[in-house]
C-alpha cells in the first residue's frame, strides 16, 4: 500500500540556543502511510516535527520532501509545498472565529472558489465546525478546538500532514473519534506522520513507528512489531 518516499529526514541534529536536543535522527515516510513517532516527555518529538515544518532549522543533516531539499526552507514556503503541521497544543488563533481560522489554513490559496470548496470539505469531515463557524476559537471545547486545528491543517490541501499530540487534554471517547478521523484522512490520500503519548492507540492505527529517546531513534519497525516488542511495551505501555 505504501508508495514512494515522500519525506526523508537524514541524520538531523537540532538544538535551542546552541544546546543540542536532537542527536542525529533519521526517518522516512512513504506516501499513503500513517507513521507514528512515540517517546517520553522531552524526548524530542515536537522538536523533530518543528524542524521538519521549518519553524527551526537543523544544525546538520538533510530533510527532503517530495523530491526537494527543504532543510533550510522557511516554514511559510514549506506549507505551500504540501507539508502541513498541526502543532502541539493546537495553537489556534484564539480571538479569530472558526471560519477565519480555517480560511487562514488556506492562506497560500488565492482563488475564493477553491477556498470555499475546501471549507465545504472541512465541514463534511467535522460537521460540528459548520455549526460553530462564527464562534471565537478560544471559546470552544478542547475537542472542538482539536478538530478545528486538524481541519485548519487540511485546508492547505497537504500531501503530508504532521499531527503533534492530538490526544492532549482530551477525554478517551473524543481521542478515539479523533484517531478515527486520522484514518479517514489517510484514506482520502493524505500521508500522516503523528506524534502520540498514547502509544497503544497510536500504533493501532499506524503502519510503522519510530521510538525516540533523548533525541535519538532507539527502535523502529512496523506497528505490529513495535506493539509486540517487550521493550516498547514495558517502556511506553506500562506492561
Amino acid at each position, binding site marked *: 500500500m505504501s508508495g514512494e518516499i515522500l519525506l526523508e529526514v537524514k541524520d538531523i541534529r537540532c538544538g535551542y540556543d546552541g544546546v543540542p536536543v536532537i542527536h542525529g535522527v533519521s526517518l522516512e515516510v512513504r506516501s499513503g502511510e500513517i507513521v507514528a513517532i512515540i517517546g517520553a516527555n522531552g524526548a524530542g518529538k515536537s522538536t523533530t516535527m518543528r524542524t521538519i*515544518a*521549518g*519553524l527551526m532549522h537543523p544544525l546538520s543533516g538533510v530533510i527532503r520532501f517530495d523530491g526537494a531539499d527543504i532543510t533550510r526552507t*522557511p*516554514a*511559510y*514556503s514549506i*506549507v*505551500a509545498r504540501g507539508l*502541513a*503541521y498541526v*502543532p502541539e497544543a493546537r*495553537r*489556534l*488563533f*484564539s*480571538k*479569530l472565529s472558526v471560519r*477565519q481560522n480555517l*480560511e*487562514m*489554513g488556506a*492562506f*497560500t490559496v488565492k482563488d475564493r472558489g477553491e477556498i470555499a470548496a475546501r471549507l465545504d470539505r472541512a465541514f463534511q469531515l467535522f460537521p460540528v465546525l459548520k455549526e460553530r463557524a462564527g464562534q471565537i476559537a478560544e471559546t470552544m471545547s478542547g475537542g472542538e478546538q482539536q478538530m478545528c486545528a486538524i481541519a*485548519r491543517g487540511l485546508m*492547505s490541501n497537504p500531501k503530508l500532514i504532521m499531527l503533534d499530540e492530538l490526544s492532549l487534554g482530551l477525554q478517551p471517547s473524543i481521542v478515539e473519534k479523533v484517531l478515527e478521523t486520522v484514518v479517514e484522512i489517510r484514506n482520502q490520500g493524505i500521508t500522516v506522520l503523528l506524534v502520540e503519548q498514547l502509544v497503544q492507540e497510536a500504533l493501532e492505527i499506524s503502519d510503522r513507528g519510530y521510538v525516540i529517546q533523548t533525541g535519538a531513534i532507539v527502535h523502529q519497525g512496523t506497528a505490529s512489531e513495535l506493539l509486540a516488542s517487550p521493550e516498547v511495551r514495558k517502556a511506553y505501555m506500562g506492561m
Partner: protein
Amino acid sequence: MSLFFQVILDGLWAGLLYGLIAAGLSLIWGVMDVLNFAHGDFLMVGMYVSFFLGFLFKADPLVSWVASGIFLFLFGMLTYKLVISRILGKAMAPLLATFGLSMMVKNLVLNRFSPNFRILESTILEGRSFMVGDVIVPLPQFVTSLFALAVLGLLYWMLTRTRFGWAVQATALDGEAARLMGVNTEKIFLLVFGIGGACVGIAGGLLPSYLATHPDVGTLFSLIAFMIVAMGGFGSVPGALVAAVMVGLIESLAGFYIGPVYKYIAVFGIYLVVILIRPKGLFGW
C-alpha cells in the same frame, strides 16, 4: 450652553488627532510587542516633510500629507529592517533601540534645521472656520479630524475584512502558527511598521496647517500617544480611538473649567485611575 459645546467640540478635534497619531503606535505594539519610542519623532519628521514642501515648493499640507505619509511608510520599514528586525523578541532591546533612534532623529533635525519654530504661511485652511449655531468649528482641525476618521476606518477595515488584515491578526496572535499557515511574518512585520509610520506621517503632513514645526514637537504627542495606547488596551485600534477622544475631551474640559495649567494633570490623573482599575486598558485582551 453653547460654550459647553464649544469646549466639547474642541476636545473632540484634539482627540481625533490623538487617535490618528496613536493608531500606528497601537498597531505596531499589537502585532509585534514593540513600543516604538521614536513614534513622536516620526510625527515630527512628517511635519518637516510637509513644512519644507510648503516652504520650498508652495505645496499645501492638504496635498503634502500624501508625501509625508509615503515618506514615513518608507522610514518605518527602514527602521524595521535596520533596527527592529535584528533585536525583535529580545526583551527590552527594541524599546531601548527606538529610544536611541528617537534621540538620534531629534538631534539630527536640531542640527540640520535649528531649534526654530517654523510656521507655514498662507495655507489653504489657515484661519478659516465655520459656525454651527453659536459654535465655531476651525477648518484645519475639522479637516484633520475627518482624515483621522477616514484613516482609522480604513485601518480597521483592512485589519478585519481583508486577507492581509487577517494575516496581520494571525501574526499578532501567534506568529509561529501564522508561519505554519504560509504567512511570511517577517514581511508582515515590515509592512506593519510601514503602515504605522504612514498613519503618523499623514498626521504630521496635515499638522503644519495649524501647528508650528520644531524638533521637539513630537515629544508631548508621543507621551499622549503612549498613554492612549495603554488606556485603550495595547493593540486595539478601536480602543485607541475611544481612549484618544476621551483624552481630548478631558483635556479640553479640564483646561476650560479648571484652568489651562491643570489640563495635563487631569489627563494623566485619569489615565492612572483607568490603568489602576483596568490594567489591560479599556479594550485590552
